[in-house]
């Protein structure tokens, strides 16, 4: 039973809904991968993959290690250029650049800087008007205010992950890409992460998260898809059930 999953009708699938939430947060861009292929030498990480994610949708991507999940997220974040194929962002106006929040395996933070300095640094680079205020607000939201002036290298894994999510939320992105955000977290941090993703999803942001198997986090998804050897092999949008998508990995 998927208690937290939203029915497709509840998700922000129409452009009107997308316009309504864009006043609060970055416009929730969708994602459209058309025949995306990514090769590293002779190795195919993605094989002519077609996938369309509507604005406001919350998608759980699953698959074995090396199935192409991370590569797909890096292509979506435009950090990796696909070898072939096209990536577009439905829901955005022509020429509009999507505000993307990306949380990867690595924390993407400077350990020799404090939590506050890290957020302010990236805030300034992103051109946020008052980076100090924004950093303070995010530190409060992630319950890290008391450690704001501590070096990141002194943080626990859970605290680093919370700060990584705070960094990804700096520009209030409409599109969030989370690559196995729950890895290495204890019960308390996992609960915090689940609540945060739940809130972000309800705010109408498009969320694509890589997960391993069913978890409290994956239950937040309104859609699940499975990758294998760089190809999409199951998708709840095309008739597969959540149980099927997640059970395929255990077979």
């Amino acid at each position, binding site marked *: 039973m998927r208690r937290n999953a939203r029915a497709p009708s509840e998700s922000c699938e129409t452009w009107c809904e997308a316009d309504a939430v864009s006043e609060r947060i970055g416009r929730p861009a969708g994602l459209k991968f058309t025949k995306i292929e990514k090769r590293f030498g002779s190795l195919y990480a993605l094989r002519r993959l077609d996938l369309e994610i509507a604005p406001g949708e919350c998608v759980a991507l699953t698959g074995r290690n090396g199935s192409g999940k991370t590569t797909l997220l*890096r292509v979506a*974040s435009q*950090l*990796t*250029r696909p070898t072939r194929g096209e990536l577009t962002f439905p829901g955005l106006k022509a020429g509009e650049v999507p505000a*993307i929040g*990306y949380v*990867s*395996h*690595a*924390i*993407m*933070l*400077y*350990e*020799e*800087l404090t939590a506050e*300095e890290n957020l302010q*640094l*990236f805030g*300034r*680079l*992103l*051109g946020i008007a008052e980076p100090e205020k924004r950093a303070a607000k995010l530190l409060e939201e992630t319950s890290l205010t008391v450690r704001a002036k501590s070096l990141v290298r002194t943080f626990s894994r859970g605290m680093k992950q919370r700060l990584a999510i705070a*960094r990804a939320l700096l520009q209030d992105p409409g599109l969030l890409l989370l690559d196995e955000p729950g890895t290495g977290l204890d019960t308390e941090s996992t609960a915090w992460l689940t609540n945060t993703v739940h809130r972000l999803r309800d705010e109408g942001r498009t969320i694509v998260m890589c997960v391993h198997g069913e978890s409290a986090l994956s239950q937040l998804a309104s859609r699940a898809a499975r990758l294998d050897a760089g190809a999409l092999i199951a998708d709840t949008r095309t008739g597969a059930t959540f149980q099927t998508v997640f059970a395929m990995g255990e077979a």
Partner: protein
Amino acid sequence: MKLLSNTAVLLRKEVHAEFRSHELLTTTSVFMLIVIVLFSFTFDPTSAESRQFGPGLLWLAFLFSASLMLQACFLRERTNDTLSALRLAVNDPFAIFLAKLCANTIFLLVAELVLLFVFAVFYNVSVFPVFPQLVLVFFLGSLGISTTGTALSAVSSQARMREVLLPLLLMPLLVPVLIPSTEATKALLETEPALRWDWLGILVAFDVVFLTALWLFGEYLLEE
């Protein structure tokens, strides 16, 4: 404007992180000091010999220690994949290069100027009368080393043999910097000092060409 503001923010971060850790400046300065002192004890040169061979030795010491500094410049960004965070945050990836090469030039120049006085003492060479001219030569030479080294550091940090690749690529490419820098320094340390604009011109041309190339193609160096 966005390019300049992003560069300023990143340069501030580089300097701030360095003043907190002292990693790059300490390593570079200590290495330069060892080379200069060891050569002084090994050859025990007279003042005339120092003026003849000293500049070459000085620039080789700068080059070797710079390769240590430049190695770390992009490798440090790999630790937590902060390079990806920077690429997502900046509009123009050239800002990342510009900040790094400015920081590298500043750190290298500081280490060079400190070690210049050690060189003057150990090699019995007077540097005070031509100090401003030497700063100009050191700046242009360091800029050339940093520009080329920063670009190659971005490439080598993604390669398999990243620890040894940078010096192998860097040394041959920097011959056009090493020769004019050495010759210009040598002319300034002569008994009748002269600022050789012909050698400085070559240094300026090298810096302009490599900076332009980095501006045009830098984005591709950061891609996976």
